[in-house]
């Protein structure tokens, strides 16, 4: 590789995850010379994409790896529902339409899918599962990109940019202790959200953000988003909105990935540090609710909660990394959790007394529910009666943030004056807020990155050759 700072690239891709690599491949296939700048070292390349498992795409019929059709209309309904209508309808529908082609395109880039075998998120119809998971997917994308002649620099963090009147000229790239200037005709920003930047999170969440755990990469610090917003890009998305789930409180601060998630909420009760319940654990199926509990726990004192269940529920959910804390009695459990014994006993007793008899069935919205309890448990409510009793401590686990840059259908960044930037594009988490005003549906992160990444790369190549 010649010294990147002495060249003029057609497309400079900032990031190294799914959005970045889709953009890099599509720009290169469009004839552009491409340099990818990845802040992480090689092993950690690919940001949050490393931790993903599947992507959601519309398709008209079942395939080898998908159990049935998932039409554009149905995808739109799902998206509309999870976001409560807070989505750019035109852009979202455009993305959904484009998602139809994505599965085939991704496979052409060497990524392989598997039939969905196990797990509790029954997404076999709507979502395609990567064989070997997100890191396997990334390995394939990098292999393809490099064989096409895409250049990749690792440990290359973009720390500044020369942007004039919405026109990108060059990026300042930190490599070791040196900062280099790299020029390019176009920029594709695919550097993720700012979820790993606790200070930034604190601006909106205050001190509770100190107790957040970051499920994915520590490298998504929002540096590029900040640069773009400071240069006049039109912000989009509520900064307090993000994808957050309740994960095991014992998880590492960063990068614990998927294995710290807990999907037993629906089978037990969830109490805060005062041993009080605070929401309906059985409101809906777990896949539809799992993105809700992160925020619920974030709103509790000290951002900690405990999922409590008994032996009868102990094998109904996916195993997780840390063992459940165990007690022969509720009192023993409370002591181990450091909760007020009387309070937890009272909460459990009150819950047990409110449980109405029903026929338990974890696969449907069953008729096991509470009566006269606030908050209620609408389904799968069964008395906690069979020892041993178990608990998992949980904290908010932030997956990714929604504040981003506004884009148009060609993935071009829109500036505050409403005009599109001359040569800057964005894809992935960094513009997810266009589509996700709030809420989340499994697999959409990868859809946003793939679809807009591919478009951004294509458009950047076109722009560069003009």
């Amino acid at each position: 590789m010649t010294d990147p700072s002495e060249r003029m690239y057609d497309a400079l891709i900032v990031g190294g995850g799914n959005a970045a690599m889709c953009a890099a491949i599509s720009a290169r296939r469009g004839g552009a010379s491409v340099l990818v700048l990845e802040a992480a070292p090689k092993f950690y390349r690919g940001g949050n994409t490393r931790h993903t498992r599947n992507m959601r795409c519309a398709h008209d019929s079942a395939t080898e790896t998908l159990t049935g059709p998932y039409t554009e209309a149905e995808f739109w309904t799902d998206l509309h529902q999870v976001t409560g209508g807070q989505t750019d309808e035109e852009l979202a529908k455009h993305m959904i339409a484009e998602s139809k082609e994505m599965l085939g395109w991704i496979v052409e880039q060497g990524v392989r899918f598997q039939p969905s075998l196990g797990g509790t998120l029954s997404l076999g119809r709507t979502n395609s599962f990567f064989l070997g998971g997100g890191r396997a997917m990334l390995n394939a994308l990098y292999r393809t990109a490099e064989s096409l002649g895409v250049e990749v620099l690792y440990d290359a963090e973009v720390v500044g940019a020369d942007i004039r009147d919405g026109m990108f000229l060059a990026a300042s790239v930190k490599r070791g202790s040196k900062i280099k200037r790299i020029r390019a005709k176009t920029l594709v920003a695919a550097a993720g959200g700012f979820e790993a930047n606790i200070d930034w999170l604190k601006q909106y969440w205050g001190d509770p953000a100190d107790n957040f755990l970051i499920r994915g990469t520590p490298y998504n610090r929002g540096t590029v988003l900040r640069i773009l917003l400071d240069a006049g890009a039109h912000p989009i998305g509520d900064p307090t909105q993000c994808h957050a789930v309740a994960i095991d409180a014992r998880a590492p601060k960063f990068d614990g990935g998927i294995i710290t998630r807990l999907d037993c909420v629906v089978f037990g009760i969830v109490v805060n540090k005062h041993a009080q319940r605070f929401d309906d654990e059985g409101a809906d199926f777990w896949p539809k609710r799992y993105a809700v509990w992160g925020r619920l726990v974030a709103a509790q004192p000290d951002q900690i909660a405990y999922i409590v269940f008994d032996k009868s529920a102990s094998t109904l959910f996916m195993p997780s990394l840390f063992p459940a804390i165990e007690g022969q009695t509720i009192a023993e459990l409370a002591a181990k959790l450091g909760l007020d014994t009387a309070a937890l006993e009272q909460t459990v007793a009150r819950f047990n007394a409110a449980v109405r008899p029903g026929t338990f069935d974890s696969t449907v919205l069953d008729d096991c529910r509470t009566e006269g309890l606030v908050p209620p448990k609408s389904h799968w409510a069964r008395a906690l009666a069979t020892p041993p009793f178990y608990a998992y401590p949980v904290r908010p686990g932030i997956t990714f943030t929604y504040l981003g840059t506004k884009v148009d259908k060609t993935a071009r960044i829109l500036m505050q004056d409403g005009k599109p930037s001359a040569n800057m594009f964005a894809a992935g988490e960094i513009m997810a807020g266009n589509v996700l005003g709030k809420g989340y549906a499994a697999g959409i992160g990868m859809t946003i990155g793939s679809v807009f990444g591919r478009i951004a790369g294509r458009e950047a190549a076109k722009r560069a050759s003009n």
Partner: protein
Amino acid sequence: MQATETTSPALIEADRLMVVCNSCRYCEGICAVFPAMEMRRSFTAADLRYFANLCHGCGACYDDCQFSPPHEFNVNVPKVMAQVRAESYAHYAWPRAAAKIFEHNGLAVALTAALGVAAFVAGFVAWTDPSVLFGTHTGPGAFYRLMPHNAMVLLFGAAFSYALLALAMGLRNFWRDGKGAEAAAYAAAGHDAATLRYLDGGGAGCQDGDGAESDNRRLFHHLTLYGFLLCLASTTTATLYHYVLGREAPYPWYDVPVVLGTLGGLGLLVGPIGLMREKAKRDPATKATGLVGMETAFVAMLFLTSLSGLALLVLRETPAMGLLLAFHLGVVFALFLTLPYGKFVHGLYRYLALVRYAQERKSGP
């Protein structure tokens, strides 16, 4: 959590990894290890040995893992499975004490045995009549001028019977840790074993470090396996020729035992070398450390058996025949001796593990 019945560090680590993998499951489509694991929530030592014998060490799950080192979860399934697998050979071997001898210096033991027997055969002949050892012998029964057929049968029959007995005992030990299976499971496993179904890294071949994949290991393994089976078929036909048809070795080059033996021998030349080369190319991080002994011994003995056998075929009508035959016999003897304690058993245990897997898929663990 559960692997308390033995305190081997490899088992403890395998148990830890299976807890991680079972909460992740991203690799479930790659090979049989992960679906077998998913049928459980906790793992006994026997379960872990069973998983280890399902693993082909293709490395795919290491390259795909978001938690492989330097990540703090430090997940390295191929390496740990290789360790548990090697330990399981010793654990199930009969008699267990013999396994210990081979564990660390397998190659040395095997070579000593080979050369010892070769020297014995050659020395014995030379002592009785040196001209026989360095003479040229042709026609049926030429070999037996060096060593009478009965003596050969006695020596090798004994070695072979011992190997069979020890292997059978090892298999029994392994199988006792599982449960019975139906005929269909044996057939399904036979198919998986014959095609090396899971030695493909989930479809694209083994990972040769740095994410590049190839199917070479499967190719070389096929050459080795089928080479071995052809040689076995050759020996069997020759035995039948001898006892049923009364025809004495050596046979002409176009005759069945020689053709089978030659083809098999070629497979056993290319296969083992290829396997060793592929092994050298693998990402060192995924290989078990300090376990080369019996693995190399078996592959080396296979290679030497076939090399000396083929040399014998080419040079059998020259004065070199005597020494070559002595050497060949020595190596074959050592091969038999090492069979129950080395890499050879992986084939048998893996087959039984596949049987168990096929059965569990049907009726649960």
